[in-house]
């Protein structure tokens, strides 16, 4: 029996799913509420920017964005299989996982050149 390499994408999918389940709703709700709660947006931006100066905060932010991206890509990729939508594996896999990787890389570039 040949070993599958699916554990790589499944680990990213699982990690993203766990993150989304635990802190996703809180993150979305707090972001939506910011509009009402914050009196001075400039000051909030300054606070968040200074928080993002620390490498650990940047890494945590990257994880919160990149892992759910892989989670979404993985679910959509296998969803296509369940919907009987066929295509070359390299093309579909490249589009979804490649897309998640490209967006994560872009996010990392922005975060670490702030």
């Amino acid at each position, binding site marked *: *029996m*040949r*070993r*599958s390499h*699916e*554990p790589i994408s499944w*680990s990213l999918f*699982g990690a993203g799913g766990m993150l989304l389940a635990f802190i996703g709703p809180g993150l979305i709700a707090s972001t939506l509420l910011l509009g009402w709660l914050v009196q001075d947006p400039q000051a909030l931006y300054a606070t968040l920017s200074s928080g993002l100066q620390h490498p650990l905060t940047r890494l945590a932010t990257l994880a919160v964005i990149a892992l759910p991206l892989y989670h979404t890509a993985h679910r959509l990729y296998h969803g296509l299989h*369940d919907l009987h939508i066929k295509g070359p594996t390299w093309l579909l896999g490249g589009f979804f996982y490649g897309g998640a990787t490209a967006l994560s890389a872009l996010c990392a570039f922005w975060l670490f050149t702030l």
Partner: protein
Amino acid sequence: MSDTIELAVTRYRPEQDTQPWEQRYTVPCSDDMSVLDALNYIKDALDPSLSHRWSCRMAICGSCGVMVNGEPKLSCKTFLRDYREAGVLEVRALDNLPVERDLVADISGVVEHIEAVKPWLIRHSEAPVDTAHSQTPAQMARYHAFSQCINCALCYAACPQFGRNPAFLGPAALTLAQRYNLDSRDEGSSERMPWLNAEEGVWSCTFVGYCSEVCPKDVDPASAINRGKVASDINYGVNLFRLLRGKGDA
């Protein structure tokens, strides 16, 4: 309340029929009659040529699985009273499996998959005959639900992935692999992991979950397979570490 009900049975007799066809039978309907009782009534009183498989009549032997109105069911555990409203019961052999005759599905492929994962206790050394391999209730609780499988193959009829690729080991086989891997008395997980780790192992499952819905013994194969994915994931990481240290593929 009607005291009869109509069964639309998909017949297939390989020596006579080129393709399956539907035959309708009207059978008595009472609150305590199961679909198996109805099939036995047809066989005994209406049409002795009908073939169906059954044995225990109490959801233990796992041999009377059929599709009832499109759902995989044990015919002994499915009651006519629940279909009075529908008026007609469509009964056919289990989906996703070759049909031997009428309602008899060929489950030999499923049995081969189950045997492949070595669903028995594997020990490197036997305990002395005058002692037992003791196990705490907590250790038993880890695998107990998965040990309730009766190999009825309803989960295979429910699984869209097995329907598309019969090489997929499928819900029952993967659940049994997990059942023995989780048993504190077992020492054989290294012999089962290659099956779980393969594309045809846990990784063909996309967690549709219908297997767990149709399981007549509440085994929850979808959960077992997902736990198998965690085990295979860890195994992959450990193996990667081994390869990086220059050791062979495990």
